[in-house]
């Protein structure tokens, strides 16, 4: 594949991520912050998000597994995850967290467990998609090309 084809592959892979709601405008904000001085900014922030999220999901699993569930603690973890997913533009994870918080307030363990499953699922999906996207980007850069900076949604 030549650079042009790889760049088109990048565009074809990225657009559906927005249309399907995996990512929102905040992700574009992150991409705009990336420049020659910080060429790996998006990967760095998203990697932090992966690490942080995995820790939070573990903590949530543990908290909901207790005989007496501390819903304040559960809510605090979900709040963190909602915040970071929102900040990187992981829209579906964020929305799953919003629903989760409602059930924390109701102190409904079963519903919370279902929400946790939902959040884990959305997290796995977006993680896979972003990792694939980063692989495509690495290939473009390795081939001497640059990552497209404009995504026109009119096409």
């Amino acid at each position, binding site marked *: 594949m030549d650079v042009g084809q790889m760049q088109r592959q990048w565009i074809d892979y990225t657009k559906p991520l927005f249309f399907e709601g995996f990512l929102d405008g*905040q992700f574009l*904000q*992150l991409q*705009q*912050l990336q420049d020659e001085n*910080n060429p790996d*900014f998006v990967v*760095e*922030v998203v990697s*932090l*998000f992966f690490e*942080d999220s995995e820790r939070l999901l573990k903590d949530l699993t543990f908290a909901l597994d207790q005989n007496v569930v501390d819903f304040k603690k559960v809510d*605090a973890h979900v*709040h*963190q995850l*909602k*915040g*970071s997913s*929102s*900040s*990187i*533009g992981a829209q579906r994870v964020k929305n799953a967290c919003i629903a989760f918080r409602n059930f924390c307030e109701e102190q409904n363990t079963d519903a919370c467990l279902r929400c946790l499953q939902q959040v884990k699922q959305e997290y796995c999906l977006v993680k896979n998609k972003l990792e694939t996207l980063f692989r495509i980007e690495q290939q473009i850069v390795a081939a001497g090309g640059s990552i497209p900076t404009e995504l026109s949604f009119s096409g």
Partner: protein
Amino acid sequence: MAAPSSSNWVMESAHDVPHVLAVDDNLIDRKLVEKLLRNSSCKVTTAENGPRALELLGLTSGGQNSMNGRSKVNLVITDYCMPGMTGYELLKKIKESSVMKEVPVVIMSSENIPTRINKCLEEGAQMFILKPLKQSDVKKLTCQLMN
């Protein structure tokens, strides 16, 4: 929105770069706000909680200014929801201090709650920004700071 008090907003010379203290318990948000501020030509120090922020501002009972007095903070931007000391409580402590009360404090929150916003503005917050933070939010803020 509260009008800025002019004294501490005037940069001492054209070469001064605003020094911002950014406070947030969320690691990803700290990284993002730091980058946004750096992109707007600010020097940035981050803190992960209120007590640490107070320490850096020299407002703890020890009285030591950890930034040795030469890197004066021109703006504090803090998250509202933090465990322990909230952003609101941090705002109050700053406004109660004789040394730091003129420093503008901006509150960030992911939740758009009018009573929360009003409470912060009444306590002297410069501005209330909704998260997630965007480049345009930070540009607006730093433009105000430089004028």
